[in-house]
């Protein structure tokens, strides 16, 4: 049983490397341990100390994503790159989470989000077998499955729906928290019946570092898509922001929000901002949870079943 899963994982890794090799995408390895961390107020890093080497920074972060270093490579003119490497997120442990997991992340300079979406689907077809993809906007998914328009519903209406589906104390929830709750409690369970779904045009407030444009209804939406397979969030893609000032502003805003949440400040990656100033090419990028891909390939119900040694079996 264990051997079968190890073999399946190895096959998927080989197939992934073959896929990118044949498309001329370069495999890279960037630091897992680094002096700057993710400022995202909703992600918590593992922090450790460097002993000795007095000239070096003392506090180091295990990376929650390889994004910053990969963007620095893109700014250096690396061209298309991919990475298969471990990421670490503190406090995340469930059937679908493990504090350490394997991330597949890749960037395509000069590509539109639509081109990247096609490539993402081709990879999933190569690894899980071909199937059709249902595309739906975030707006339409909410109207069909949650019964409200995420752009026009009032905060009171959103909170009321949250209480109805989850009995949460909703008076503290802001719009995005309400939407996140409705995705996890209503939309994802509904998507379980739909195999492969591309969800796109997220509200601009959930753009993270994606560009923003206007949808057909005049709503500001993020140039971002997520791939769900059987209700499992598998990949998240952006038409990447390339503005250095916007990146610096986002770091500062994140840390301000962390302060408000009572979370420690995170040292932001100033070298990323410098790299963006030098010039990040227009590009699309995507992060895919590789262990979840193995889960789907093995028809497993939890990450624990497919990770070689999950936190439950340390």
């Amino acid at each position: 049983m264990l051997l079968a899963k190890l073999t399946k994982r190895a096959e998927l890794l080989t197939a992934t490397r073959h896929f990118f090799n044949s498309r001329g995408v370069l495999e890279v390895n960037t630091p897992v341990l680094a002096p700057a961390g993710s400022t995202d107020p909703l992600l918590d890093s593992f922090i450790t100390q460097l002993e000795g080497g007095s000239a070096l920074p003392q506090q180091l972060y295990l990376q929650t994503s390889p994004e910053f270093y990969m963007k620095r490579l893109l700014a250096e003119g690396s061209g298309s790159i991919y990475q298969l490497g471990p990421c670490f997120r503190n406090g995340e442990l469930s059937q679908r989470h493990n504090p350490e997991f394997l991330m597949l992340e890749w960037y395509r300079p000069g590509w539109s989000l639509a081109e990247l979406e096609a490539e993402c689907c081709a990879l999933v077809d190569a690894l899980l077998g071909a199937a059709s993809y249902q595309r739906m906007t975030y707006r339409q998914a909410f109207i069909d499955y949650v019964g409200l328009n995420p752009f026009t519903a009032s905060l009171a209406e959103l909170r009321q729906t949250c209480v109805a589906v989850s009995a949460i104390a909703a008076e503290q929830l802001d719009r995005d928290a309400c939407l996140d709750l409705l995705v996890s409690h209503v939309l994802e369970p509904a998507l379980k019946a739909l195999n492969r779904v591309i969800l796109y045009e997220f509200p601009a407030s959930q753009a993270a570092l994606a560009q923003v444009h206007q949808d057909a209804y005049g709503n500001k939406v993020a140039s971002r898509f997520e791939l769900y397979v059987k209700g499992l969030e598998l990949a998240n893609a952006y038409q990447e922001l390339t503005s250095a000032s916007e990146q610096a502003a986002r770091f500062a805003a994140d840390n301000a929000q962390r302060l408000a949440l009572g979370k420690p400040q995170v040292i932001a990656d100033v070298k990323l901002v410098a790299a963006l100033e030098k010039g990040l090419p227009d590009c699309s990028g995507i992060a895919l949870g590789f262990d979840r891909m193995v889960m789907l390939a093995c028809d497993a119900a939890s990450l624990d079943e497919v990770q070689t040694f999950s936190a439950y079996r340390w």
Partner: protein
Amino acid sequence: MANYATNEFKGGLKFMLDADPCSMIDIEHIKPGKGQAFTRVKYRNLNSGRVGEKTFKSGESVEAADVMDTDMEYLYTDGEFWHFMKTDGSFEQIGADAKALGDTSKWLKEQEVYLVTLYNGAPISVTAPNFIVLPVTETDPGLKGDTAQGGSKPATLPTGAVVRVPLFVNEGDLLKIDTRTGEYVSRA
């Protein structure tokens, strides 16, 4: 009482919800790649016995409930209360009412030890041991030759409970019963 934050939630944790003591059954961490984390809790309301679900925002906390599970021996009933005695050597006695006793009344037996759940010192539920031995007070006589066919018939116990038993069981026989399912296991 103490408070527990979402990262301290675990199965069996007793907490207060809308003025009722509850026990956590199942905890699920929910976190999208980008976005808010939530903790979904399946719980049992210890007053009503009902199971419910509630989601908490990450970092939210709940108040601990003063709930204790105590081993106690059943003594007698005065018709209104069922009296139990602590087995810790204190000989302290507590009377549980019919609501706290619930379905466990079917499996009551003097000198047997039960798990009594105390909330603020008062009993709110009584749990029988998984297996209990009780005599048959009434059942139809078994017919000869039926033993091989594996048929069953009702048998009444001194508590008034009725269980399905094999045809060979007679009045006065001691039966081992699984109290979780209410099913006959064997003759004792």
